[in-house]
């Protein structure tokens, strides 16, 4: 589904990604871990098409197409969803209206008609349960005045409604207490399907206690220095990231 090959990207002339290579297949959950400043969020943003980042080398194929040539909205319509680390507020626009506009943009892309009001309400009510939120939540302005936890839950709620092929969760666990974390993780788990894939970007291992990734990759200084199964996450929790940096240097992978 997703193939990242030797991806290099910079922002304001600083190279942040220095050759990331990663393959994600349908049905898989990949966790990308790494210390602060290793380029995890940059990777997520580059995949979503943030203009501030310039790709200088490498390629990304998504469902066989060149992802990097697509506008952010085209990527979204093709099923790439980014759950933001810092969800943005849009005052004056209700959650329901925003989500309906987004859903209709995706439907239009698929050649479907706009969703009717009743169908939409039925859909969102069902998905609200997934993130344990009240219906009144729909009438609040997008993320305005939301607590940190509500904002993150809103991201997962949007994820549930928009039903993407590739979901990228950028530090969705940061700022969540343990209960909220469980709700978010449960939501994501329920959304897993054989035809979809998820990339979870996180600094801490704790989200992975609930999310059960198939693969864990460690990103250090803009490169994946180690990949493994779920046990790698536990190892990192125990030993931190420094040993990996040393190991990487020992085998001659230089930053």
């Amino acid at each position: 589904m997703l193939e990242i090959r030797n991806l290099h990207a910079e922002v304001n002339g600083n190279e942040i990604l220095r050759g990331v290579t990663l393959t994600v297949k349908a049905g898989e959950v990949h966790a990308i871990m790494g210390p602060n400043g290793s380029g995890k969020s940059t990777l997520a943003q580059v995949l979503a098409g943030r203009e501030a980042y310039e790709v200088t080398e490498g390629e990304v194929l998504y469902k066989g197409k060149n992802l990097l040539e697509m506008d952010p909205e085209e990527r979204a319509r093709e099923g790439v969803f980014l759950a933001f680390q810092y969800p943005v507020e849009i005052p004056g626009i209700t959650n329901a209206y925003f989500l309906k506009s987004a859903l209709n943009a995706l439907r239009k892309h698929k050649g479907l008609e706009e969703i009717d009001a009743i169908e939409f309400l039925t859909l969102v009510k069902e998905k609200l349960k997934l993130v344990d939120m009240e219906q009144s939540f729909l009438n609040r302005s997008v993320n305005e005045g939301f607590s940190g936890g509500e904002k993150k839950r809103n991201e997962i709620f949007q994820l549930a409604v928009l039903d993407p092929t590739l979901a990228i969760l950028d530090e969705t666990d940061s700022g969540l207490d343990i209960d909220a974390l469980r709700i978010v993780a449960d939501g994501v788990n329920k959304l897993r399907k054989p035809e979809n894939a998820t990339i979870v970007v996180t600094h801490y291992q704790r989200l992975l206690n609930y999310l059960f990734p198939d693969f864990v990759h460690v990103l250090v200084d803009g490169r994946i220095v180690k990949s493994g199964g779920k046990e790698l996450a536990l190892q990192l929790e125990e030993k931190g990231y420094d040993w990996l940096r040393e190991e990487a240097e020992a085998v001659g992978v230089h930053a």
Partner: protein
Amino acid sequence: MSTSTNTIEELSMREYKWGFVTDIEAETAPRGLNEDVIRFISAKKNEPEWLLEWRLKAYRHWLTMEEPRWPNVKYDAIDYQDIIYYSAPKQKKRPQSLDEVDPEILRTYEKLGIPLAEQQMLAGVAVDAVFDSVSVATTFKERLRELGIIFCSFSEAVQEHPELVRKYLGSVVPYTDNFFATLNSAVFSDGSFCYIPKGVRCPMELSTYFRINAADTGQFERTLIVAEEGSYVSYLEGCTAPMRDTNQLHAAVVELIAVGDNAQIKYSTVQNWYPGDKDGKGGIYNFVTKRGKCIGKNSKISWTQVETGSAITWKYPSIILQGEGSVGEFYSVAVVNNYQQADTGTKMIHMGKNTSSTIVSKGISAGFGQNSYRGLVKVQKSADNARNFSQCDSLLLGDKCGAHTFPYIEVKNRTARVEHEASTSKIGEDQIFYCKQRGLSTEDAVNLIVNGFCKEVFRELPMEFAVEAQKLLGISLEGSVG
């Protein structure tokens, strides 16, 4: 990225879609202004002597006045002798029904989305249509008449209800008021007149649609609305003009009078005069005086305006709060794109006890546009316990546009409470990216964010017009974010 830039360019090249010209024969006054032209206009309208005198007094006063230069707008000097002050579609006599109106004119309104034929009308909106200088059709007149409501063109009111016109004309905006209002008083050609008798709640929105068609003409309409005790009326005006590369002057006067106790007038404007092209060539100079007076106890006047058109907008819909407990409201969205300029706001004059006013102004600037809010809140000695709340927010799209705020507050009574809040923000890259990541195009994203910003104002508009205003906003801002 390249595709999105292309789309934006394409969209910004899209033309002002109301910019067509209707080919009809017109009867016009000779170019320029002098007492003969005023006599010509007055004679065309078969006006009584007192009205001609009033016009001439205004004209003579106007000759002593100087064009104001204090607004925060720039434009070349207007040559008042190069304007045609009266232009009317030629027809043998006043149309008595829609069947007699020139089909070309009806087609024009249809193109504008204003079907005049009553059977096509949305139930609940009565329309008076002003084409260049004269009113061509008023719909639903009969139904309104049964309730004692008078809704007709100004010229007709002069003929049929001279006592009312004479009593209220100039009672809120005297002919000496200001340069453009005085000019209007001398040369005004038509407009709408509306009278709501005691205790009547007008069952439908009343609406006037203004259209400038002829070249080099000015439009000088006058609207007068009088609401008696316990009555209510909601009134809407809309405006468009063809695209021409010279500037055209629109200097209207609107007077609202809430005469009786508990009378209520709600006046909404969606102004979409031709704004000029993307280099700032052409467009309408929209220099308008609008003022309301709350005379009755607990009477209320509310202005809602969505100003997206015109090369220059210069207007301050104001309210004199004279009656005890009277209420004034001003809700405004003003949008400038390309080289448009707007200097707009309101004046709330508190005279009566326990009067209150609310001001919500949303300014949106894009391209090279300059947007100024200018407002006055004045609490006179007599106005015990006056209350005002003002909120002025500016949104900038891009870095070559400007937003300015000039709030004036004059308080002469210690019991007054006046609050003013202001904010200026730039439309966020983050917000746009967030929307795009959810599948929305850049245009839709900007539209959504701007509409959210204007929500407090849009919700004051009657339903159908709120929808129209939202669409208009989108069109006005096309291509404003790269």
